[in-house]
């Protein structure tokens, strides 16, 4: 396991005392905490190098441009993209998906074309497609779940066909923890010549993601879920796919030549980055990637496997706790409910133990409908969590059951 005590020293927030208790943060799937290396990278940028990027011929502007473009290079290497031209910085994963849905969809979707998603998509990989379907007349199709919360692979074969014009799906479900066989589905999509996008928001922070090996056409993730700051996300796209897309937003920085009645756009990736970018966000993300690399994806994955396994074991022992999603081979999170207790109440009681845990639909209401629950409690892990954290979680759950004993 990782040396959690040592790692925690890098994260100032763990000095916080919540309700008299040490903070135990179990909501990394919503957003992760930030190491001082990331916080300082941002501060230092503002203290020493701040200037707008591109088109400045003075020292600071040259520095900030180099730092910003270097962050792009670091992001490219992190997912093994063959070129930084494939990396577009966005606000978050959500914007990256909207960008593709709009720039690709408005250009290429026709009425009755089919967009193939799954039943387990985050709202961010569902609503943009609902909106574009309405605009273009395309139709949404969904791959359904089997009773274990995995994709029904027979259903994929039924749903993909010559009308399918785009596939987009999540690699690791933020709600069930399911790990999808994306490589298989990418291959399948390509046999039908269909472009495919991977929502890697919950996978890139935790496991090795290699876009060349996957051969996906697009892939997205968010900085704030991988130790980086808010306000920065990444769209990876194969160069020829990005080239084929018109710009999403218009504005400064994304143009070459502008006249009142026409404009000539810059090459990728800048064509998709209108206006002053989140420079400090990109620099913070680069620092986060360096931090993750210094720990090592293999080690992270191993550490989280141990935590997740332990959490499931302990939760299983408690009467009246129902766990959702596949029990084996899952991402570093566990969603569950305590019989007769609303998740919101669980979260309030756990907060008294210093445990920050999410209660809600986790932006996956279709999964709640499928589970037939209004909401779940979700514990999600990262490099700063230890087995002790899970012990406290378990104690909190037991206390919750005690408080609500009269109800069950």
């Amino acid at each position, binding site marked *: 396991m990782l040396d959690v005590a040592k790692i925690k020293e890098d994260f100032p927030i763990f000095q916080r005392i919540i309700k008299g208790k040490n903070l135990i943060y179990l909501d990394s799937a919503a957003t992760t905490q930030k190491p001082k290396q990331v916080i300082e990278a941002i501060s230092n940028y503002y203290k020493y190098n701040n200037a707008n990027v591109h088109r400045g011929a003075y020292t600071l502007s040259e520095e900030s441009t180099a730092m910003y473009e270097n962050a792009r290079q670091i992001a490219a290497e992190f997912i093994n993209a063959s070129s930084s031209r494939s990396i577009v910085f966005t606000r978050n994963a959500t914007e990256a998906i909207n960008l593709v849905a709009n720039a690709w969809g408005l250009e290429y979707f026709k009425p009755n074309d089919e967009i193939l998603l799954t039943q387990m998509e985050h709202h961010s990989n569902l609503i943009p497609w609902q909106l574009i379907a309405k605009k273009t007349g395309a139709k949404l199709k969904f791959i359904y779940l089997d009773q274990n919360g995995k994709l029904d692979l027979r259903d994929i074969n039924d749903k993909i066909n010559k009308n399918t014009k785009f596939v987009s799906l999540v690699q690791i479900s933020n709600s069930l923890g399911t790990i999808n066989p994306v490589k298989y589905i990418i291959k399948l999509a390509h046999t039908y010549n269909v472009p495919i996008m991977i929502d890697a928001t919950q996978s890139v922070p935790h496991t090795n993601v290699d876009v060349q090996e996957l051969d996906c056409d697009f892939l997205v993730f968010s900085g704030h879920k991988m130790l980086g700051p808010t306000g920065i996300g990444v769209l990876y796209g194969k160069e020829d796919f990005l080239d084929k897309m018109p710009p999403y937003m218009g504005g400064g920085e994304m143009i070459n030549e502008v006249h009142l009645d026409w404009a000539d756009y810059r090459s990728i990736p800048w064509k998709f980055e209108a206006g002053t970018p989140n420079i400090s966000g990109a620099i913070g993300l680069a620092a986060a990637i360096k931090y993750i690399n210094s720990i090592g994806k293999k080690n992270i994955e191993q550490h989280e496997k141990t935590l997740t396994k332990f959490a499931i074991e302990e939760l299983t022992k408690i009467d009246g706790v129902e766990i959702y999603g596949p029990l084996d081979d899952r991402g570093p999170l566990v969603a569950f409910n305590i019989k007769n*207790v*609303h*998740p*919101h*109440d669980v979260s*309030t*009681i756990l907060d*008294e133990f210093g445990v920050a845990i999410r*209660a*809600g*639909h986790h932006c996956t209401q279709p999964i709640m409908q499928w589970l037939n629950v*209004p*909401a779940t409690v979700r514990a999600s892990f990262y490099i700063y969590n230890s087995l002790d954290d899970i012990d406290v979680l378990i104690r909190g759950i037991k206390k919750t059951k005690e*408080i*609500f004993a*009269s*109800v069950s």
Partner: protein
Amino acid sequence: MSVEDLYSEIVLEHYKEPHNVGEIEYPEIFAKGFNESCGDDIKIFAKVKNNIIEDIKFLGKGCAISQSSASMMTDLIKGKTLDEVKEFIKNFNKKITGEEEFPENSEEWFELSALKGVIKFPIRVKCASLAWHTLSQGIKDFENKQKK
């Protein structure tokens, strides 16, 4: 004030077996409420005659706080005039946000005082007020319709 006080016996009893759950056909007052911050929702139905709330029921799903609050509220306002109810809602809002103290030795407020614990959990205030806000909206709509 600890979390045990939040989940007092009275709150949990109402949560376990909420009063006045159900629908009313052809209600004079109907309103839907939604707590954007946690997703709880509620529907309130009431029969009004001579400006008096003769019957009231609710349907909802949600946490112990929102459900018990709705249960107690519906108990307490039955038989009150609309003006009395509006005043009561106003008062409740002041208590639950900590602006005023919950009255002691008041029979009417005896059960509701069980929600006192919420004051120390600001994020839960919205849960406790959901039913009250929703009813308030329903009365407003009803009165506007009357005017026309």
